[in-house]
């Protein structure tokens, strides 16, 4: 974020803050659903926005703003869960029916060399890679069908940039399990984009 914009934001500029809400609200909802459930995620994120607004003057800009907001939302979700004495919805088991090997297995020969190597992707910018109209629809379906625990780690680590330490702390999952779940989630996304780039369909 540019220095001028950051200074304006830290001074509590409501227009810039509303822009933040527009850009990050959906990601924060997705981040908290696995911790408090879909019915309470909106309330949790609403409280997180209030806390963020009150603390924005102390945002130093050392981490990405999404990561800073994500940490606030996760803390809010954990607090709400404790207050309401709810069980954590996250489980690092439960996708045993999924292919437990990496999802690209069929693309290698028996000796582990590429049989069906990745296609060449046409990438203009990180912002545009996943947001093309047709791909965005397929991505939405893929995320909806993804096992909750994989989606959860993907949202925390890749969409919000939280550290593995924060993730393990919030979900009581081991770092090694979190890494396995993240690898599976990324692989599904990789396959989706690769197929789309190769065939124009998904």
């Amino acid at each position, binding site marked *: 974020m540019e220095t001028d914009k950051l200074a304006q934001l830290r001074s509590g500029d409501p227009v810039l803050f509303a822009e933040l809400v527009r850009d990050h*609200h959906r990601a924060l909802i997705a981040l908290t659903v696995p911790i408090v459930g879909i019915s309470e995620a909106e309330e949790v994120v609403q409280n997180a926005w209030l806390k963020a607004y009150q603390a924005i003057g102390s945002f130093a800009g050392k981490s990405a703003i999404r990561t800073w907001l994500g940490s606030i939302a996760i803390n809010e979700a954990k607090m709400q869960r404790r207050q309401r004495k709810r069980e954590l919805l996250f489980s690092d088991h439960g996708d045993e029916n999924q292919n437990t090997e990496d999802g690209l297995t069929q693309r290698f020969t028996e000796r582990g060399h590429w049989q069906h190597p990745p296609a060449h992707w046409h990438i203009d910018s990180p912002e545009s*890679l996943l947001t093309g109209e047709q791909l965005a629809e397929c991505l939405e379906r893929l995320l909806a069908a993804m096992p909750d625990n994989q989606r959860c780690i993907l949202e925390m680590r890749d969409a919000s940039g939280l550290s593995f330490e924060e993730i393990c702390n919030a979900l009581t999952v081991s770092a090694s399990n979190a890494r396995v779940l993240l690898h599976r989630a990324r692989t599904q*996304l990789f396959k989706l984009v690769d197929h789309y780039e190769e065939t124009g369909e998904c």
Partner: protein
Amino acid sequence: MLSCREVVNHADRLLEDDLSFSARIAIKFHLLLCRHCRRYVKQLRRLVAAIPFMHNKATDEEVHKVMDCIH
């Protein structure tokens, strides 16, 4: 030498700069020789960079709701 499948399995840690010196050298050596794995790692890196942008922007209604509660 590592197989391509092994490189793919270590690629997440490569991106996070979280590999031992010897594992990093083994992967870098493989990447020098294998254009498919070079492409895989490059595109995985770009995919990971794109994930923070995968969510739609909030609607006006959602933004107003949040801002109303703040003020």
